[in-house]
């Protein structure tokens, strides 16, 4: 029990349970499988982005450009599959390739020129997005191929409500689940993953311990790029239109969700489980407010309050912990 109380995740989980209870009392429709599958599906886009952001935050950096990367990957993918045809695998490959390349550009600037990560990625956000809008003219794409539409409707298993409405585990949700599992294995069981934690804790210590900083940096930013690319594809699957201005501007919301889950901006801290809880909390808030018929105007006020309380609480915990421990810092 004492061990559980030490973890940030425990508190987030508690808040989620309390909220879910309140919402269910007011509207029992919240706790149905149908609503559950719906919410999980519609949050798979934010969820995949959040996985990428978790990696960067753990490594001690920050990435602002991932929304632009997602937009570019999505747009290039859509244009190519419309012009040259293909199937769902080429769509995946295209989105992934664009995402990884743009991530590598970020990593190169950060590693070789030692530019602070926040500055680099704000600059590249503007560059990627600016160039995309200029080349595309900001045009929306509606005419996605039929197979692209059909793929989005696939369900791994299907259930039926009493009224005969079908629902189930969408293929889109399963992409998210797969991504989380792979990311979890990398973070937890590979040398690369441990290197990311080590680098976030202390760059020098990680170098002395024998981690290859260059390779780790490159991996982190290209992985975030890959996640952004996949998220771009998933968003296109969800809404079946490609609008260049629909993703950029959400970067701080995704970072907020990850931070709610306990990842620290100082690096070295954070878990995928925490990130999933953070995204869940935000999803439940938004879905719950709709179900409770609270005006959506209040949404941001609640989210903002929760974030402030959560970060204040964990800062307070950290301070009491630091007071108890005697630390010797060696530069």
């Amino acid at each position, binding site marked *: 029990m004492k061990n559980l109380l030490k973890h940030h995740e425990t508190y987030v989980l508690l808040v989620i349970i309390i909220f879910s209870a309140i919402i269910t009392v007011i509207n029992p429709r919240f706790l149905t499988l149908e609503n559950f599958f719906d919410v999980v599906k519609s949050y798979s886009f934010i969820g995949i982005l959040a996985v990428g952001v978790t990696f960067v935050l753990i490594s001690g950096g920050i990435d602002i450009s991932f929304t632009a990367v997602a937009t570019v990957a999505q747009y290039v993918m859509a244009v190519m599959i419309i012009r040259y045809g293909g199937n769902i695998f080429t769509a995946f490959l295209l989105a992934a390739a664009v995402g990884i390349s743009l991530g590598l550009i970020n990593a190169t600037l950060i590693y070789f020129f030692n530019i602070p990560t926040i*500055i680099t990625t704000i600059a590249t956000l503007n560059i990627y*997005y600016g160039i995309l809008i200029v080349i595309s003219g900001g045009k929306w794409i509606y005419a996605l191929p039929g197979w692209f539409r059909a793929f989005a409707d696939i369900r791994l298993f299907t259930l039926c409500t009493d009224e005969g409405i079908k629902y189930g585990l969408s293929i889109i949700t399963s992409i998210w689940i797969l991504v989380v599992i792979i990311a979890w294995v990398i973070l937890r069981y590979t040398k690369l993953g441990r290197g990311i934690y080590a680098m976030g804790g202390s760059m020098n210590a990680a170098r002395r311990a024998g981690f290859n900083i260059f390779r780790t940096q490159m991996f982190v930013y290209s992985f975030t790029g890959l996640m952004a690319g996949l998220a771009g594809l998933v968003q296109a699957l969800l809404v079946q239109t490609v609008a260049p201005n629909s993703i950029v*501007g959400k970067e701080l919301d995704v970072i907020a969700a990850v931070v709610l889950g306990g990842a620290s901006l100082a690096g070295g801290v954070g878990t995928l489980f925490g990130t999933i809880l953070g995204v869940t909390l935000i999803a439940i808030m938004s879905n719950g407010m709709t179900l409770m018929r609270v005006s959506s*105007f209040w949404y941001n006020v609640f989210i903002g309050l929760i974030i402030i309380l959560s970060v*204040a609480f964990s800062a307070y915990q950290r301070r009491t912990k630091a007071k108890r421990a005697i630390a010797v810092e060696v530069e």
Partner: protein
Amino acid sequence: MRSRHSELIILGCITTAIFALMWVFNPNQFLRIGNLQNMAFQLPELGLLSLAMMVTMLTGGINLSIIATANLSGIVTALILTAMINPDAPPPGSGGIIILAICAGLLTAMLIGLLNGILVAVIDVSPILATLGMMILVNGLTIVITKGYVISGLPNAVRFIGNGVVLGIPMGTIIFALCAGIMALILNLTVLGFNIYMVGSNPTASNFAGVNNTAVLIKTYIISGLYAGIAAMIMISRFNSAKAGYGESYLLVTILASVLGGTSAAGGFGKVSGLVMSLIILQIASSGFNLLGVSAFLTIAFWGFIIILVMVVNFISAKVLERKAA
């Protein structure tokens, strides 16, 4: 110290180069009074917001809530004005009401700054998170208060702040110049300014040197809020309205402008003169491109290129200096 000066020289060179380039490309239009005045009208908002951003970056922090703060502060002022003054038939003594409304707006902004300061300095939340949460919260409040509607119809006297011209110089520019001057005075000549740089370069050292870090940080965030509030007054007066979500795209640009002007993201370094110069670079580039008919989005991409270019040049010149020293 020498390297800081060389940064200003680099910025000066870029400014001159871009100015010359734009003049060559638009020989007939660029130097016309109308265009210069146009540039001067757009600069103040971004400039004041960048000052609000820069002062927190000097302490090693950041303030993501400046745009939200500006919007809430503008909405408070606009609500009081539209409730008490009919713009077509201003009641006698409306001057007092206008001053009261502006003070209320600025106080709101300072209050948000105070809350940020308490979160950062007393509770020890990292500035990025504290102000990110505050940004979302305050944005929410602006939406709740306005219900998404635009509040418009401000009295003429208020419209003068953003649109008026004194001796050929736009009123907004005069306000910006004053505020930039005051900020430079605070940073260079007062104890608070000295302490802001101290806290930014090494908080532990400044603490042992007897500086009250908590008080310095709280004051810094209040100043940041106040400057966002002043930007709000110019903003509502220029648009003749207030609304949730005005100017959101400025947020990341203010960070770019500060860094381009030599402010270090890690804190401790940065000058108002550098910031003003970087703002002029950004403004010349965007006006010049605009005259050339280049898309605004390409301009934004170009800003991104400039910032990376400057950071790369700084990095290389630092490396060269290091090698010379060794």
